[in-house]
């Protein structure tokens, strides 16, 4: 059984690629055979976040257009045995993707024994985003606790319930999950930021993860090491929990409450 997971959001810059990379790594670390695919044709970035940018020879569009085999285009991760990256094309226009071509690649990955296909969607609601979600079994909707991100993700939810193969065939809904990023428990506590509960209530989704705001995310992308691999980071633990929940485990939410301060810290600042 191959499960296709789309990581999507509508709005740009909320952490789709960071999330795709970390979820893919997390799944692979649990022994699953995983392919993570960049659907952002023309604006390739997943390769940088995964740290394999210098090993891209062939890309997704090359495979679809029959200019190389899937095997040639899949980049094997150097850290995790069962993880492969398929880069987006950097030069072609986005019309180079076709739903027939994407289906063929997914069929080949399935035949090859891949258990998870993680699709890193581009921002927006154009063709790339549409194709990234079209074949999905599940969607991880990445949201910042901020008005424009929440609104855009609701738009994406509308598309997930109408413009996917599952919706068209009446073959059950795409299973939708909410993943909050850049969450600041401190600002939630002071009423400056919407809480997990608020966003969950507005969108009506179950929460698969809450990733705290952290300097570790930039450090990870600087280094080309998916942040989930930084064992010392709360962000890593938060993504690890999200992976566990995707696999059906019940894990309590962490990093959503501000650590309690002592009396002195509260009186004199900290």
């Amino acid at each position, binding site marked *: 059984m191959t499960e296709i997971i789309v990581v999507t959001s509508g709005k740009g810059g909320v952490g789709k690629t960071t999330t795709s990379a970390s979820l893919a790594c997390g799944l692979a670390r649990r022994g699953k055979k995983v392919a993570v695919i960049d659907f952002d044709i023309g604006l390739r970035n997943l390769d940088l976040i995964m740290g394999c940018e210098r090993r891209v020879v062939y890309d997704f569009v090359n495979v679809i257009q029959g200019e190389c085999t899937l095997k040639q285009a899949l980049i094997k991760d150097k850290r995790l045995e069962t993880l492969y990256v398929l880069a987006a094309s950097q030069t072609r226009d986005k019309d180079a993707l076709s739903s027939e071509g994407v289906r063929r690649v997914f069929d080949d990955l399935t035949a090859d024994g891949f258990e998870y296909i993680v699709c890193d969607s581009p921002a927006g609601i154009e063709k790339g985003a549409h194709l990234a979600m079209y074949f999905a079994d599940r969607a991880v909707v990445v949201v910042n606790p901020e*008005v424009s991100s929440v*609104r855009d993700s609701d738009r994406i939810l509308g598309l997930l319930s109408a413009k996917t193969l599952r919706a068209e065939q009446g073959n059950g809904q795409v299973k939708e999950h909410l993943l909050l990023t850049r969450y600041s428990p401190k600002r939630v506590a002071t*009423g400056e930021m*919407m809480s997990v509960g*608020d966003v969950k209530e*507005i969108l009506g989704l179950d929460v698969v993860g809450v990733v705290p705001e952290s300097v570790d995310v930039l450090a990870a992308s600087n280094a080309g090491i998916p942040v989930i691999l930084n064992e010392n980071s709360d962000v890593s633990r938060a993504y690890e929990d999200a992976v566990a929940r995707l696999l059906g485990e019940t894990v309590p939410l962490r990093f959503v409450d501000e650590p309690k301060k002592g009396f002195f810290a*509260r009186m004199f600042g900290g």
Partner: protein
Amino acid sequence: MGLLALFRRSPPSAHVAKERLRIIIQQERNARGGGPDYLPLLRRELLEVIRKYVNVDPAAVQINVEREDGQEVLEFSVALPEKAR
């Protein structure tokens, strides 16, 4: 946060954000029809079938999808003209 913060009450902007989103998202969901995109076609075809028997006004046919507790209910209503009754 120090002693001064105890005397300063800043407005809870998160609350404002939540209320604004609640309203606009409800509005946008309604505008999308709140349902699958085959609704307009379904409505037209149903209208054709009904018109074989009763000459109803196109505006008299209402079709809606309501979401409640994860369940979807397709609501369909036709107002019959006076003479047909």
